[in-house]
């Protein structure tokens, strides 16, 4: 018997029975589930099997208007509540999320396609932590550094992506509620379910009606929400192209805007880096969540003298990654979120090949149904290559090399984006010097893709503006009491 088969993993599937998905869901407006005004619905499928999970009401302009009105009505009372009372609601929500985290993790894996290991160990703990963190701010806003008695803005219109459906919801809703705003949130059309389950959590927590409204739908509903004249604050996470369109559409209004957009993060490995540790960081950097992460380390910059060693070690490591059923607890790489996204990744990878970069993937059997893409590494990449410039949003890594720290910095900064970067070196002064020069909102040194509710997250340049997380994350939802003028 070959050694490899002697140590085969036995299947270890997480039970689906912990989650009960209804055949259909409505919009969540003013504390009630309701049909869309025009009766439209859409189906949400499991990306790993293409199984239809549920039919969901599709919000249109009339629904957006109704939800904004509900949020406006709820705002008067919600914003007048003592912060300590708002805090208790948020603490309740955090606790209920913890109680239901197994259910939500399975649900998220079914609807999104990401491995249960990630929803269970990363998404859900962070979701609960975000509500817990911002709950504590609700009655301490005078101490947040935005002046005495900072006021909420009003109704927040929030549009979130499909890569971390529940985590992005938490990033948006927790600070909004803590600061006294009310919310209309549109989850992505491919991943509406966990947001609808969150609506049920709001009900269990006894949250007043209209404070949180959830509108599953497509881009048209998102645009209607962003452009609604009675929305005071716009928060968006998603593509840079849509972010620019939003920035244009709010011009000349008083809406406050934060945008978390694309990235093309550089992960810089110096010749003195601990190779095995760096390889783990590279893997986390680009293959976590199938690379569908805006802060992914999608450009590997390796010092020339260790390039061969690092790339060899990386390839060896990638051969051990397990791709397949996302509900299996041994799965490292799950499904791509949608057929559309898979096509986009395939097209960009093909472009990389056509432009002359060398493409490599480990031997890897892809399931016959569902949307799958094998982990892919491009070597021989130059800065002019499409795979080194465009955000791919999939498990595709481009490897470039450099000789000096200055060259590494210049290459790392040679992008329209500025969200994240990584540095791998044992030399402390080099970490500080390079981190200082990188134009990126998050820099991970000797680690990658770490997130925490206490830490501000957000981009430079075309990766968007504003920060989410930490004390900084409150600013987006507060009108500072500026001594300069009216406000």
């Amino acid at each position, binding site marked *: 018997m070959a050694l490899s088969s002697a140590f085969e993993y036995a299947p270890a599937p997480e039970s689906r029975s912990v989650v009960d998905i209804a055949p259909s869901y409505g919009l969540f407006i003013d504390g009630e589930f309701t049909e869309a005004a025009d009766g439209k619905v859409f189906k949400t499928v499991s990306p790993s099997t293409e199984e239809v999970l549920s039919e969901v009401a599709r919000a249109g302009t009339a629904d957006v208007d109704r939800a904004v009105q509900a949020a406006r009505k709820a705002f008067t009372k919600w914003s007048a509540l003592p912060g300590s009372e708002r805090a208790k609601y948020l603490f309740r929500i955090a606790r209920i999320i913890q109680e239901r985290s197994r259910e939500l993790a399975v649900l998220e894996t079914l609807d999104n396609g990401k491995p249960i290991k990630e929803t269970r160990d990363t998404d859900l703990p962070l979701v609960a932590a975000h509500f817990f963190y911002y709950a504590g701010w609700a009655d301490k806003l005078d101490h947040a550094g935005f002046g005495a008695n900072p006021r909420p803005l009003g109704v927040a219109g929030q549009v979130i992506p499909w890569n971390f459906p529940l985590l992005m919801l938490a990033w948006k809703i927790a600070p909004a509620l803590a600061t006294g705003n009310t919310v209309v949130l549109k989850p992505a059309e491919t991943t509406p379910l966990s947001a609808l389950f969150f609506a049920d959590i709001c009900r269990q927590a006894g949250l007043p009606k209209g404070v949180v409204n959830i509108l599953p739908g497509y881009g048209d509903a998102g645009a209607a929400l962003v452009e609604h004249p009675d929305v005071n604050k716009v928060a968006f996470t998603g593509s840079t192209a849509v972010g620019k369109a939003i920035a244009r559409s709010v011009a000349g209004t*008083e809406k406050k805007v934060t945008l978390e957009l694309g990235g093309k993060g550089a992960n810089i490995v110096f010749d003195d880096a601990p190779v095995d540790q760096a390889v783990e960081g590279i893997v986390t950097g680009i293959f976590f969540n199938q690379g569908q992460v805006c802060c992914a380390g999608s450009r590997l910059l390796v010092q020339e003298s260790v390039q061969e060693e690092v790339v060899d070690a990386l390839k060896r490591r990638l051969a051990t990654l397990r791709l397949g059923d996302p509900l299996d607890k041994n799965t490292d790489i799950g499904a791509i979120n949608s057929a559309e996204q898979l096509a986009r990744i395939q097209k960009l990878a093909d472009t990389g090949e056509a432009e002359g970069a060398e493409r490599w993937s480990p031997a890897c059997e892809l399931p016959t149904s569902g949307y799958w893409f094998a982990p892919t590494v491009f070597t021989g990449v130059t800065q002019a290559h499409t795979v080194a410039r465009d955000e791919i949003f999939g498990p595709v890594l481009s490897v470039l090399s450099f000789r000096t720290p200055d060259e590494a910095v210049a290459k790392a900064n040679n992008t329209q984006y500025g969200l994240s970067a990584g540095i791998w070196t044992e030399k402390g002064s080099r970490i500080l010097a390079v981190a200082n020069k990188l134009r990126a909102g998050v820099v991970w040194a000797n680690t990658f893709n770490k997130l925490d509710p206490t830490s501000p997250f957000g981009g430079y340049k075309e990766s968007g503006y504003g920060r989410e997380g930490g004390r900084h994350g409150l600013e987006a939802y507060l009108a500072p009491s500026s001594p300069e003028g009216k406000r």
Partner: protein
Amino acid sequence: MSTVEQQNRLSVFKTYKLYVGGKFPRSESGRVYEVTDSKGNWLANAPQSSRKDARDAVVAARKAFGGWSGATAYNRGQVLYRVAEMLEGRRDQFVREVADADGISKQKAGAVVDAAVDRWVWYAGWTDKIGQIVGGANPVAGPFFNLSTPEPTGVVAVVAPQDSSFLGLVSVVAPVIATGNTAVVIASAKSPLPALSLGEVLATSDLPGGVVNVLSGKTAEIAAPLAAHQDVNAIDLTGADAELARDLEIAAADNLKRVLRPQAVDFTATPGTERLTAFLETKTVWHPTGALGVSGSSY
């Protein structure tokens, strides 16, 4: 010199010029426009900047960014304070120019200039404190050292207020550069002279050339290419009217410039930190801590 000679002496006019890259060029376009006082009396011909002047100013500001943003906060503070020193020494000149520009009495203009000097001093003191106010260590739930620090956004285009030709101008320029950004400033269209004279003060204040660049002319004509410029990182729309501000904000979206929208401002009041933070990014740096930690020690 006899009194008669003094009375008959013809005064020397000043040719007002732009301030770009530490130098005083005329407009590339060769155009000037008449600047008058509030009663319509001719004061000077001011340069009417072109699109090319705006682009030259951006190049100068970009070139200066590395050095200025890399200077220590202590050093930047001293340079800003030096501006106050230089301005104090030229007080009489600015009182005269501000009185003419804003159509106010010499006495009121004196108060304006004093306030402008004090504003430089106020911002000089902020350079090495803003990082402590808005940055900090984050107590993450894990074995990591994690620090958030503010950093300048880059090149900031500033549409200076139209009706406060000097105090307003200083109030919008000083916070931009205090935090390490560099600036391309469009002076008040109808009263640009105090702004152009400020260039002379900045040039003698240890401020590296290109950190502040002053353009005069038609606001919309200069602002449009700056708002659309791909190498400008942020825009302050204080001096733009509602319609222009909207157009500029739309143009600014092309490279996701940070936008500070126009708002009613009382420039005589002590400012908040909003103008400092408007042009700052926050960088969060993570590093593993390992298992050793002082607070976890039993010693």
